[in-house]
């Protein structure tokens, strides 16, 4: 049985203009334990809604979401989410941001800090433990947010366009760092992006969503072993294939 299961999810909400938006309809997919799953799709196809439902922040109108066989009824301790940006606590320095999740589990400051230090190191933030979010660039802030999520040690890591606001160099570097981490820790990752390139670099499998209402259009396994060369023939062919599916959706 798959680790994460979405079955026939329906979700409608009312937007600011008081119109009903059918965000997700008949959304069904599985994700295996330890799988790195990327989700791409046009803007407004319900990618974020999907993640929020998986995180237990929002409830589906109907259908079932299961994690490890249990119905998801709210926020669960084995799941966490990395937002697109600006989710750090501005009154806490880097160390105390990263240690936040551990603070909920252990009273001992020393244990918290030594556990957190490992992820600060992994994300290349050593030397910035005492810095506050407003003193960091967007890319560094995002690395802190990822370190914070990892220090919480989730089984399921949800990521909502975490590199969306970053410049391309930072983006490439963080993709690499995330892959290294995933290979080391073998978390199950659900990663939403709107760049095809990013999805191919990262994923075991890519889900392509269509919009109005949002559901899964195609599921494509990414064959080539990592690290994947962006200029290789297989990479480019896959890129074109996904692009064609997306273009068909948009038209």
């Amino acid at each position: 049985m798959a680790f994460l299961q979405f079955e026939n999810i329906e979700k409608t909400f009312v937007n600011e203009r008081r119109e009903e938006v059918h965000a997700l309809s008949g959304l069904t997919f599985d994700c295996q334990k330890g799988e790195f799953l990327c989700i791409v799709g046009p803007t407004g196809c319900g990618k974020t809604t999907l993640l929020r439902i998986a995180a237990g922040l929002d409830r589906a109108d109907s259908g079932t979401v299961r994690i490890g066989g249990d119905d998801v009824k709210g926020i669960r301790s084995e799941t966490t989410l990395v937002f697109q940006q600006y989710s750090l606590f501005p009154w806490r320095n880097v160390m105390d941001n990263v240690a936040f999740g551990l603070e909920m589990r252990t009273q001992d400051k020393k244990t918290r800090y030594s556990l957190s230090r490992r992820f600060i190191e992994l994300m290349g933030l050593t030397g910035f433990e005492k810095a506050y979010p407003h003193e960091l660039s967007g890319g560094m802030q995002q690395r802190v947010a990822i370190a914070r999520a990892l220090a919480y040690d989730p089984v399921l890591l949800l990521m909502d366009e975490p590199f969306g606001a970053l410049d391309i160099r930072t983006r490439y570097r963080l993709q690499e760092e995330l892959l290294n981490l995933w290979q080391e820790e073998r978390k199950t990752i659900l990663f939403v992006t709107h760049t095809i390139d990013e999805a191919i670099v990262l994923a075991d499998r890519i889900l392509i969503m269509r919009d109005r209402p949002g559901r899964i259009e195609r599921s494509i396994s990414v064959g080539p072993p990592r690290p994947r060369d962006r200029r290789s023939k297989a990479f480019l062919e896959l890129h074109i294939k996904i692009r064609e599916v997306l273009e068909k959706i948009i038209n």
Partner: protein
Amino acid sequence: MRSLLLGILLPLIILFVWEIAAVQVNNPTLLPRVEAVAGRLIHPFSDLLNTGSFVRHIIVSASRVILGFLLAALVGIPLGLLVGRHLLIRQIFSPIIEVLRPLCPIAWIPFAMAVFKTYTIADVFGVHYTSSLFGHIQLGMLFVIFYGGFFPIFLNTVHGVKSVKNIHVESSLLLGADQRRLFRKVILPSALPAILTGLRVGLGISWMVIIAAEMLPGSDAGIGYLIMFSYELAEMDILIASMILIGLVGTLLSYGVKWISDRTSFWQAKER
């Protein structure tokens, strides 16, 4: 250094114009000379008009303010946190607060005098040393200071709680926070800068209200009382010296709270 020099320029001009005017007027019961007022100010411990020294009057006024202000904070902050967090409580409190808020605390002074008469803290707790400080802290004055300080503290706290960012709340819940931790580790630190702003404004208003309250009949001490008393005896040098002291103490109080808030809310101004 430059800003210090520029800042001191205008006070010097005012002193200069005042001195010239005082020499021209040549009537100390109308406008005393600068050195007469300064002469009063450099002896803060000397008795004035048989009522006690500047320092004593300021201590009396400040204790009234601090006590009333602490009460206002003690009620205003928790109530603000509750009202900010819970819709039901907000719906209960909002209408009455909206009506009471524009009602100036000074308008309450006659009411407070009528209700509380001249009862003091000493009367309430049965400690009757007439010379003690508590004997000068009238309940009516405490009430109006409480009233004046309460609204800025309460309203800023509500505002602080309501403007806690949803992404911070959700992030903390997704990192395992329960309701208690959410409150202690996210809501409270998030709202702290606004709460401190409320305290600063509240303290400023309390300090204004006490001066007004002390000027009314039934008052027996305090810097506001000293102003009124020196007016009645046409002691303009004491009157002006008192006004200067009120300004200085008010500034000091304001900077005290600002000092604290700058150290705890440093992240707020720079947050993107």
